[in-house]
């Protein structure tokens, strides 16, 4: 085993070592993961940012994706949408840059009234649907009403419905849409960049799930729920044309089968689920495939359920936040592929990020517990195989918190029902989210009192009021300060236990250049096969 590690470290990989490593990786992945802890630094040459270069025009990109279920659909508003297709087929009014600023998409420009109550979007007039019909404001009104319709059960409805109803959206002209909000929201436009907000043709709710008619850079060739599908370049796309001729999607349920397909050259990359760290080592040993990292793409919080007896006291929550060494936890859980978060749920790349957090301080942790009337604290922490990082994270926290008189019992729950029986039900568990939500959506959707995705059952009127004040503030600098105030309130209150943001590891063919991924979307325009 030592010899294998040495070979990997020295990058002197012969064919035999590759096979040997591959066999070991498949048969004893956990063993390999255990042995290669600390190997992160040694293999950084192999695992890094995606390659950039000149892409040749043309080519067919083959993507393997895990099949969500046979209920998956191309309706972007649905929580069951096949999200790899969305960015290829559709456009939104606006989109987010990697730093969180808004860019025009179907809307050429937008304005808000000084009270942030009325928003007017001016649409492009040169856009047509894949079936040739012109895109107009009626399509936008229809899409928004479809998202807000309770029958759609769109995750975005919970974000928008507190201040928007279907009847308050109007289309005065064919290229103008007006949103009349019921309460001020200066961040409203950013909420329309969500991955549920792709615009669909008017009247298409019943058919869009299979037809996939959008305005995007690719049009649908075929789609099978939980099965294969394909999209082809839309020659009349209004924006920059994509490099690729077409994209073929295949659904492969088994993680190992997906990696095998990649190694055997049957697919060019694996979407959605990142590689676990053991498989990543195996993939880097290949001569045809490489592993790229997407910086801070996943947020790994450990929600402390505020409504539970264990965590109703903010002092206990703060004690936990101070009790572990995040550098150590980052190393053990994801082998340093990520960034320490200091319990701030906002990723450092976000424009409104506040560089503040609760640091590792075991003495402070003990004194906080004392103030809460405890000498020590014991709780179960739930984990599952749902994501490969969850269990290492729980174990790392257990070990790191022990010297602070905090005992965590790691309980492994079934991955099948993890999000129905454990999430939002057990006092402490490991989970993850994709990053890339606009700040207003992140704080309101996941931490506001009563929100349906509030996984900590966090409830703090001051925090909610600060968010409301931020929404009502049109001045950008002042609004930024208010969102930063909200972050500080949340962090100081022990509202979030966030050890780190992790990079996503993407298995990619070495022929691919300009791969980029942010939040819930892929850059389908620039990606292509390297020109030779």
């Amino acid at each position, binding site marked *: 085993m030592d010899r294998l590690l040495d070979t990997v470290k020295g990058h002197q990989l012969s064919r035999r070592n590759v096979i040997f490593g591959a066999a070991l990786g498949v*048969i004893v992945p956990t063993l390999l993961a255990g042995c290669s802890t600390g190997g992160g630094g040694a293999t950084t040459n192999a695992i890094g940012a995606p390659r950039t270069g000149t892409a040749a025009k043309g080519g067919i990109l*083959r993507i393997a994706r895990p099949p969500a279920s046979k209920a998956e659909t191309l309706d972007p508003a649905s929580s069951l949408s096949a999200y790899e297709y969305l960015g290829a087929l559709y456009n939104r009014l606006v989109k987010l840059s990697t730093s969180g600023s808004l860019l025009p998409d179907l809307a050429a420009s937008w304005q808000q009234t000084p009270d942030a109550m009325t928003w007017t979007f001016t649409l492009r007039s040169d856009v047509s649907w894949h079936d040739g019909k012109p895109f107009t404001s009626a399509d936008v009104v229809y899409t928004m009403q479809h998202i807000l319709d309770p029958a759609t059960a769109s995750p975005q409805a919970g974000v928008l419905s507190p201040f928007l109803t279907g009847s308050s959206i109007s289309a005065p002209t064919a290229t103008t849409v007006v949103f009349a909000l019921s309460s001020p929201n200066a961040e409203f436009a950013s909420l329309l960049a969500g991955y549920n907000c792709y615009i669909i043709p008017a009247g298409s709710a019943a058919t869009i799930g299979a037809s996939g008619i959008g305005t995007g850079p690719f049009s649908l060739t075929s789609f099978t729920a939980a099965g*294969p599908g394909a999209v082809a370049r839309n020659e009349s796309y209004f924006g920059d044309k994509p490099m690729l001729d077409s994209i073929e999607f295949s659904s492969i349920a088994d993680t190992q089968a997906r990696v095998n397909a990649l190694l055997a050259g049957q697919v060019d990359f694996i979407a959605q689920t990142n590689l676990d760290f053991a498989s990543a080592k195996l993939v880097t040993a290949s001569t045809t495939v490489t592993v790229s990292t997407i910086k801070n793409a996943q947020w790994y919080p450990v929600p402390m359920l505020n409504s539970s007896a264990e965590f109703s006291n903010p002092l206990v929550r703060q004690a936990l936040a101070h009790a572990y060494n995040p550098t150590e936890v980052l190393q053990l859980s994801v082998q340093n592929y990520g960034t320490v978060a200091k319990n701030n749920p906002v990723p450092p790349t976000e424009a409104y990020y506040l560089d503040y957090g609760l640091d590792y301080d075991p003495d402070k942790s003990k004194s906080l517990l004392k103030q809460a009337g405890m000498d020590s604290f014991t709780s179960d922490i739930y984990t599952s195989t749902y994501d490969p990082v969850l269990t290492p994270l729980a174990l790392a926290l257990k070990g790191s918190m022990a010297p602070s008189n905090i005992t965590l019992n790691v309980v492994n729950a079934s991955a099948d*029902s993890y999000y129905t029986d454990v999430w939002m039900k057990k006092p402490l568990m490991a989970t993850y989210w994709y990053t890339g939500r606009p700040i207003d959506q992140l704080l309101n959707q996941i931490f506001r009192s009563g929100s349906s995705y509030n996984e900590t059952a966090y409830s703090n009127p001051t925090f909610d009021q600060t968010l409301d004040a931020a929404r009502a503030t049109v001045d950008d600098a002042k609004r930024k300060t208010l969102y930063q105030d909200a972050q500080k309130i949340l962090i100081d209150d022990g509202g979030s236990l966030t050890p780190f943001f992790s990079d996503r590891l993407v298995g990619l063919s070495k022929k691919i250049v300009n791969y980029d991924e942010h939040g819930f979307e892929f850059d389908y325009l620039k990606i292509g096969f390297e020109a030779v």
Partner: protein
Amino acid sequence: MTLLIARRVALSVVTVLLATVLVFTAIQLLPGDAATQILGQNATPDAVATLRGQLGLDQPAIARFFSWLGGALHGDFGTSLVSHQSVGAEVGRALVNTSLLAVITIVVGITLALVLGMVAGLLRDKWPDVAISTIALVGMSVPEFVVATVLVLLFSITIPFFPAVVVAGQNATIAELLPSVTLPAVALIFVLSAYIIRMMRTSVIDVSDSEFVRTAVLKGNSLGRIVFKHILPSAMLPTLNVIAMNVAWLVGGVVVVESIFNYPGIGTLMIQSVQTRDLPVILLITVLSAVVFVVCNLLADLISIALNPRLRHSRSAR
């Protein structure tokens, strides 16, 4: 004879029915239902309630079972809770794909196993026997998913000759599937034939030592006649039950192997349906699996009767 068969068939129907009841109950006991499984991390109480209503999961379990059973007796196995397509069509498509794999595995596997088992038995303790027995022992002790994984590493990744997975999914045509069938079939044959080889070898050795074979040898019969007329029929008898059990094992083994090769058959569909708690699909697959088990055992018994003179004449003797 007819009475015997009739009784066995009636018993089989009861067995299949019991299997469905058992599986239905087991799925009810599993945490979560189709609604929560489909929604996953989006399973907010409102979304779950809406979806449960749409899927009819708000009905009591017993009512749902009997409405399914009523339909099933008329050949209507309902619609999938997840894809909203006819379960019969969905399972049928997967069944065709699995049959392709299963038929190749059974035909090649059993023929190979019988021949190798006989060779090993006849050449007892010589090098062909040692080689065959060793390989069979490995096949018995190594699980099919390891065999499958090693095959992929060797013949898809190191030497990229066979496809590692089926990319086309459930829409794949038979022509598209054929190159992909090889590796899963080899993996299944390897494990399937191991037990049959061992059993066949033992029986051949036992029968060869028996007095009627010695008599046949002393009468100066040709080797071919001794082997095919005297040894083979008798040696086949105990092997038949092992064959039946192994063919029935295929029903389970195929689940794992299909998953590794992303082969769009019954196994992959089964795993998907259990994960999403898609009861109608699971129930139909259960019925089919139970039928395969029952039919295999029934056939083994019938062939034993046909091969064994003592059993064959039992009725006239009475």
